[in-house]
């Protein structure tokens, strides 16, 4: 994969960590999936079956899932902008630290594309960091999608690609999880009047 595409993927991941608006974060994740999808299509050129699977995955990840999340966002208007628990600078420093440690500590994974290996682990780490540091439920779902985009980056970098059963199976599971997460987001909003997960803190021992 080209260095520019890999850089774009990581920058988009960082941007999801930093932005405040759910709408912009959804667009950023959609753009990330689009970059990945286009890369997968170009790698599958000349192999019709691979191309078809890559096209399906692109449509679902870059269009259908962001559309579902946009629909969910519109049904769950926030009465006020959820104030992040940390400042932009703190989030940036923490995210950069997590990403650098994760990317630096991985051994060669055997793909023969070291930048893609680093970027995949960086995106997975960023996704986890987004879930931990962002309070709105919808942003946490986007964190899961950023992490999954990291796995997909690794998957399309595998020489010969992954078997269709795995690629489509993972996509099916992702759709299931995001659909249920969207239902939860709606229900949480209905119950507490906001998608702020910090308001759900009843269960403590």
């Amino acid at each position: 994969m080209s260095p520019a595409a890999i850089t774009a993927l990581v920058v988009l991941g960082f941007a999801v960590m930093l932005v405040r608006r759910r709408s912009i974060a959804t667009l950023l994740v959609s753009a990330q999936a689009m970059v990945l999808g286009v890369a997968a299509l170009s790698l599958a050129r000349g192999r019709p079956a691979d191309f078809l699977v890559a096209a399906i995955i692109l449509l679902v990840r870059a269009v259908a899932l962001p559309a579902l999340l946009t629909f969910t966002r519109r049904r769950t208007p926030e009465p006020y902008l959820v104030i992040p628990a940390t400042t932009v600078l703190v989030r940036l420093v923490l995210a950069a630290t997590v990403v650098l440690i994760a990317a630096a500590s991985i051994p060669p994974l055997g793909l023969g594309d070291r930048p893609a290996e680093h970027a995949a682990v960086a995106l997975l780490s960023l996704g986890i960091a987004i879930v931990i540091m962002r309070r709105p439920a919808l942003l946490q779902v986007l964190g899961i999608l950023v992490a999954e985009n990291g796995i997909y980056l690794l998957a399309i970098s595998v020489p010969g690609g992954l078997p269709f059963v795995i690629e489509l199976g993972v996509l099916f599971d992702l759709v299931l999880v995001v659909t249920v997460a969207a239902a939860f987001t709606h229900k949480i909003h209905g119950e507490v009047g906001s998608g702020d997960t910090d308001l759900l803190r009843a269960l403590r021992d």
Partner: protein
Amino acid sequence: MARLARATLTSCGRFVTDAVGPLIIAALAVPLSAALLVALMPTPGAADRLNLATSTLTAALALALAVVAIAAAPDVASRGSWYVLDVASGVFLAVVAVVGFASAAMSAFYLRHAGRSWFTARHSHAWYYAAFNVFWAVLLALPLADNLAIAWLLIEASTAASAMLVAFSGKRSALEAGWKYLVLTTLGLSIALLGIVVVYVAVGLDGSGLGRLGWQALAQHANELPHEATLFAFVLILVGLASKIGWAPVHNWLPDAHSEAPPPVSALLSAALLPTVLLIAWRTKLALEPALGSGAVQKLFIGFGLASLLVAIPFLWRPLPWKRLLAYSSLEHMGVLALGIGFGTPLAIAGVVIHIAGHALAKALGFYTAIPLMREDPRTADTPARGITRTSPTTATAMSVSLFSLAGLPPSPLFVSEVMILLGGMQAGLLGVSSIAAVLLALGFLGLAHSLLEGLFGGRKSAHRRRSRSVQAIALLTGIAALALLGVTAIAYALPGSDIVEALMRSGA
């Protein structure tokens, strides 16, 4: 005459082997069909009856498969393109079938007085049974999966259905628990998936397509895998699966989900989901161990085991609501199982099997007891149970059978299994670890016994009492569970050195 008998047995065996494929399809198709059919039922009562009928059929099919698998020990009963029916599959299928059937039967009692739920009253039974049956079907398929990637897909698929069930009541606390479970386990499984992709790459061109990640293929090529990348992948897979098994320190969702889910679902989560995912971790260990060396793998399992015990034990001493106490007990017992698999000696593995069966029976009974307990005194949902002997002797008896068994009081099978696992650890030369575990288990026993005695005899003088029809069901279940627990204890004495243990030492390969 002998020739005739042998010929009959051979033809019976061939018939059973030929029937395995259709039996597996039927065992999975029945609950999946039930998930769709409940939506067509005109009344909640009709949905209850349909679910009871289909769950009886599902359990019968799954138990038939389990019998075929265990009877074939030490050989593999059958192997298909994606499934394997070996002894491990048989043991776990039996556990999932029994707990699933009991949970299906108890669900009607829960739903009768469930009150508000995520869904409207008219559709709540249908949605509950749909999610329940999908979840159960996935749990039945999981022990049969003959491939690491397929196992991962099934585990991830279980998350969506079970998260809806955890949050079924629609209460704020249930939403919190369900959300935590959904997000944390999905992230954990993403980490595991990264590890699986790395393993797929490491196996390289030696295998073809999906078959590269079959248990047999992995075991055959393990010696040729690059050590560093495979170790990295194994750590990722184990950490990811640990988040679903609920091993400390990645267990945060477990106490919340178990305590907030409807009791029959809590039983399915604790007694079926956690051990079944643990089976996948176990199969991965056995497949990749030759590439990693037993030392590193053993340390990881023992680390998770001791961490889980250390985190769980203090909570067993605290005055917790009944279901939350059972949840921390699950954490403790998953820790014991991690130790047993980590020790890896035949005696420890025999202990693991007994522990899984005994834990499933005792824990499921404990969660079902929560139905009459919370019906008779709704405050016990959020506060510790107190003085139950004065309000309901039947419920008190069920609580006693469940908690004393879980604590490991003889003749509980968990006493025998814990002794076997600790002795197995000593056989493996890990006297220090076994000693620490023994002390922690003794403290856990005292904590649970203290909590139980407080629950039975302590606290309030007067208690609200509301009659519950589920008490009769609990009385019946207590008798059955007590007999079954004694049966498992008896099996424990015959298990070491048997073909079953021999087969389990190389599960999947």
